[in-house]
């Protein structure tokens, strides 16, 4: 049952990604509707799959490799659907859906954990995990915004504003998207860290335990705090901010992989 749900989710995300790309190439509105529809169906299946798994294994499922990538993928799609509805940037899906797809595939490709789960359920643990992943997905959004910004910027600098450039929103819009994704992601992540510490204190008697996910979380929080301060006080915007969020997201992904495989 679960394998079927998982495969169907994968299938929907592949469809959605393809439709998004076809939409970018042809700009037929029906293709966009198919793409969003496939994403919605996939997201429902994904939600079903994750809740079945979580009720079976407990919230620590999400600290295991496949569980964490699957949950990250779920959070990215959620953030995509919200951002699509709020900003109406039609190009978003072409960047975020492949990212969700990639995360799901990565979970299948990486060697599964031998770790056995403690049948733990705790309000604090669940909250910690959900917030941390939503924060992470918000940063995936900034990363995609950053990539779009750099593409649009390079077209305009090269003085060839045709092709892909006409499918992307204005630089100002993308810069704003980066800022808002950052402004939403950072508090989520901060609260995620705090609830994590509270859980650790209750469950393990210490405010701080070194889990596999602890390092990437700290790295991420540090990077985004820096970005936020840079933006707010030092006028890091536009191209530089776009480069920074991409580098930041890559660093976080890298540190996650390092700790998972290492």
């Amino acid at each position, binding site marked *: 049952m679960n394998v079927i749900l998982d495969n169907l989710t994968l299938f929907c995300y592949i469809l959605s990604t393809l439709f998004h790309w076809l939409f970018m190439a042809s700009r037929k509105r029906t293709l966009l509707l198919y793409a969003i529809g496939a994403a919605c169906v996939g997201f429902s299946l994904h939600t079903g799959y994750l809740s079945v798994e979580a009720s079976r294994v407990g919230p620590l499922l999400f600290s295991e490799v496949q569980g964490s990538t699957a949950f990250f993928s779920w959070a990215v799609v959620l953030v995509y659907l919200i951002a699509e509805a709020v900003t109406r940037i039609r190009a978003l899906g072409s960047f975020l859906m492949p990212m969700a797809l990639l995360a799901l595939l990565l979970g299948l490709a990486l060697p599964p954990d031998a770790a056995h789960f403690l049948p733990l359920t705790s309000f604090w643990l669940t909250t910690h995990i959900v917030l941390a992943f939503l924060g992470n997905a918000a940063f995936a959004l900034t990363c995609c915004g950053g990539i779009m910004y750099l593409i649009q910027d390079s077209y305009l600098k090269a003085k060839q504003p*045709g092709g892909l450039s006409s499918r992307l929103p204005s630089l100002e819009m993308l810069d704003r998207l980066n800022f808002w994704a950052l402004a939403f992601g950072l508090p989520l992540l901060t609260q995620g860290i705090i609830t994590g510490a509270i859980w650790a204190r209750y469950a393990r008697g210490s405010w701080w335990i070194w889990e596999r996910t602890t390092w990437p979380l700290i790295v991420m929080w540090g990077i985004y705090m820096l970005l936020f301060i840079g933006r707010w006080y030092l006028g890091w915007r536009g191209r530089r901010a776009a480069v920074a969020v991409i580098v930041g997201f890559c660093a976080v992904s890298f540190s996650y992989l390092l700790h998972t495989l290492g």
Partner: protein
Amino acid sequence: MHILVVGLNHKTTPIDWRERLHFPPHTLEEPLEKLAHYTDGGERVILSTCNRVELYGHVQHVARGSSRLQQFLGDYHGIAADVLTPYLYTYHGEAALRHLFRVVSSLDSLVIGEAQIAAQVKEAFAIARRAKATSSVFSQVFERAFAVAKRVRTETRIGEHAVSVSYAAVELAKKIFQDLSAKTVLILGAGEMSELTAQHLISQGVRHLLVANRTLEHAMELASRLQGQGIALDQLPEYLPKADIIVSSTGAPEPIIRKADVQNALKLRKNRSMFFIDIAVPRDIDPAVNELDNVYLYDIDDLQYVVEENRKTREREAALAETIIAREVEAVLQWFDEQQVVPAVIRLRRKAESIRQHELEKLFSKLGPLADHERQAIEAMSAAIINKLLHSPIVRLKQESQAKGGGRYLQALRELFGLDE
């Protein structure tokens, strides 16, 4: 009856002839009235824009109709009609329909994809309808043409992307800034080109406008016309950081904005993007400015390159539009055939009935007095022969008229039974 168009456009006719043959759009009623004599009262529309003069007529005979329309054009403007021959094109039937659809869809325009022509044709048609110069056929054809134009506009990108320098600049500004109404535009130099660009920007919602010029009076003058604020050129360092879009077209021999100036401005505006449009030759803005992050500099060559690329895009889209039009023309032709089937069938039945009545009269007068039931039997028999004989051709005709090329059956029917005599 045939749809006919006789006309001339920018491709066939130089401007001085187009001027002489022009019909002022607000006084079209009078020529429409006169044109009725030349189309023998058939439906007619006069389309006259700066790039074309076209007469559309619904006429009985193609050859006579086209020479009469040409005659009208000459007579009305006091020119011998033969002189016009080399400038005119004539289309009838399918070709006339295609021509009309291409004109309304702006495929025949000087600037392919321009939006004005559809409105101009609509206006021309509306005037003709008010003057009662059109009826059912032209109503159908022109309404169809407007629907086709709309379809072309929404299904292709023929109308997208600016094909003039000042519009291209506005489009670029919209790729950098989301909302132009909150932006400040600085105009350097009170030239015609910068004024035009400024006006386009204002029409896109720009409200904050600064005008700088070497002579302050000229700056003030243009500023008051555009409802902006005039400043002197030496105040530039003070105002540059406030400007999001800078349009420059001064006659200065040396660049007046250098990289260092822009760097300072960027620092003061916390790196918010700046868009420089330099339409001056020699250039007003140091090209090195484009190397700075978040700064976009387009000179006149860059803009012209963008325009050229856009024009090519439109031409590619035009090919797509042609296929849409081809399909629509076919649909209209089929509709025409279907329309003509019913009258042809009625005429066929009438003709058969009149022959029957004629023959019955002859027969009855030859036979002398007959009993009622004998008369009725003869009448019923003759009616049955006619009905049975005509039944299958009529059914076949109705079926075929819904298929492609069904018009041939109609034509054959008319000729075989001599329906047009």
